[in-house]
């Protein structure tokens, strides 16, 4: 069987290819599927949540169709968080094509635990974590987690970009971000090329759109990390989206089981999420479900888990029992958990 990481990569490529195919088919056969800015069949459609909010703010009117499809999109975002960013958005692929992925900034994500003793301690803590949280304080943990998520959202540059975009849109009276959105510009390029070739419509758009894209994604590498207000908006929902998050199997993870300073998963992550950090569950609010950590892990200890988990680093199957009995020394009669 193919490894989960490879399967995810293949599925992502296929999904994005499908998006492009749908956009072109929609132009060719007048089906009206549209572009990711808004797609669907006839009166049943989804629309870009940011575009929808912008349109509502700019027109200062509550448009029923827009509100309904915004509600549906919100439901998706609450389930899958920022999956759009890895599965539908063309920006990462464009950047990768030009080999302009942002550089990994050293061990910034795991700065506070460089010496082996701290690592071992952390490993021990991680191993003990599932057992040391009784159900009674799960509510308190939830509140603490929500506060930490909120702090993280407020500190994120993309949240600020989102705020600036919405204010500017309200003042301008036109969805301003749509003008420079890399997603819109990508499919605008596809559309303008289509109209150039098929309808002989000659416009400068064919040159201007790709040029704008190049400035945003190729010259400036960190669009997705620092500026994208769509990511900023999805982050808000992402912190509540618990499905399909990556989880570490502590029994095989080099770091959790042997205390080795492995940081492969953290450096593979485009969002710079450190799964071993104390606040990993909070950081995972920004997870795009891209599966790179799953793919890159040298011991294949990371899996995308469908259901939400209490802890990011978890023991699995036999390992749980083994670890639990180790914790309690000779007392074999105590049940784990």
């Amino acid at each position: 069987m193919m490894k989960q990481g490879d399967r995810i990569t293949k599925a992502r490529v296929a999904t994005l290819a499908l998006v492009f195919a749908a956009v072109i088919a929609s132009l060719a056969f007048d089906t009206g599927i549209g572009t990711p800015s808004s797609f669907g069949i006839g009166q049943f459609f989804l629309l870009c949540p940011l575009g929808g909010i912008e349109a509502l703010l700019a027109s200062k009117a509550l448009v029923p169709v827009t509100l309904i499809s915004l509600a549906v999109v919100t439901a998706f975002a609450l389930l899958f968080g920022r999956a759009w960013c890895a599965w539908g958005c063309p920006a990462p692929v464009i950047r990768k094509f030009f080999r302009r992925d942002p550089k990994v900034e050293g061990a910034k994500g795991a700065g506070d635990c460089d010496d082996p003793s701290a690592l071992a301690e952390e490993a021990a803590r991680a191993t003990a974590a599932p057992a040391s949280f009784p159900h009674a304080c799960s509510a308190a943990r939830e509140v603490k987690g929500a506060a930490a998520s909120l702090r993280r959202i407020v500190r994120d540059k993309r949240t600020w970009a989102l705020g600036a975009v919405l204010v500017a849109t309200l003042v301008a009276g036109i969805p301003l971000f749509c003008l420079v959105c890399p997603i819109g510009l990508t499919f605008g390029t596809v559309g303008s090329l289509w109209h150039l070739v098929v309808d002989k419509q000659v416009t400068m758009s064919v040159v201007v759109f790709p040029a704008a894209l190049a400035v945003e994604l190729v010259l400036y590498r960190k669009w997705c990390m620092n500026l994208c207000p769509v990511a900023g908006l999805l982050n808000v929902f992402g912190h509540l989206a618990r499905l399909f998050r990556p989880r570490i199997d502590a029994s095989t993870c080099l770091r959790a089981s042997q205390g080795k300073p492995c940081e492969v998963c953290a450096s593979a992550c485009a969002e710079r999420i450190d799964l071993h950090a104390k606040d990993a569950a909070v950081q995972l609010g920004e997870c795009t479900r891209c599966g790179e950590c799953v793919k890159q892990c040298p011991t294949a200890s990371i899996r995308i888990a469908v259901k939400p988990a209490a802890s990011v680093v978890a023991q699995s199957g036999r390992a749980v029992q083994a670890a639990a009995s180790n914790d309690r020394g000779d007392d074999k009669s105590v049940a784990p958990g």
Partner: protein
Amino acid sequence: MPASNPTRRTFVIGGAALLASVVVGAGARPFVAEADVLRPPGALPESEFMARCIKCERCVSVCPTDVLEPLGVEGGFMQARTPVLGFANGSCTFCDKCREVCPTAAIGAVDPYAPERGRIGAAILHEDRCLAFLETNSCGICVDACPYEALSFDAGRRPVVDEAKCNGCGECVRICPANVFTSFSGGKARGIEVVTEKTFRAGEGA
């Protein structure tokens, strides 16, 4: 160290960002409603249309006659990718599909037989280009083609537009052969053209 105080820093950066976004927004405002282009039938008034259109191009992709096309950047940076009508490929049949698929309701319903309650635009004849004006009895294709009987012949068998019946569907523009027949002398324009209500009124007043 007041400079590194996170609250103060946040406040300063936040204030600057707010100010910058207000300036950008206000700077963009004058350019919003300036385009004088043919919008899909039933489109809201230009400033309201621009407020709602998110440039998703769904209307362009659903249009069965391909009369809708995205405006190029030449038409204005703010207006690029918004839908406009181009009659080189087709004319509008008022099929209503663009209204149906618009996710922000920027396009409303319209009755093609009641142009006074809203229309794409109105046709105007260019007497210097229309073949019937250049040579008597030479052409009258548009009069036969008009689906709304808005075109008729005058005493000299030259086309006349009935402004009250014309809804700007563009069928006359699509089939006008003037650009073909005058191409030897460098003429690319057609003998009849659909212009926006705004331009039409301005032309009437002049």
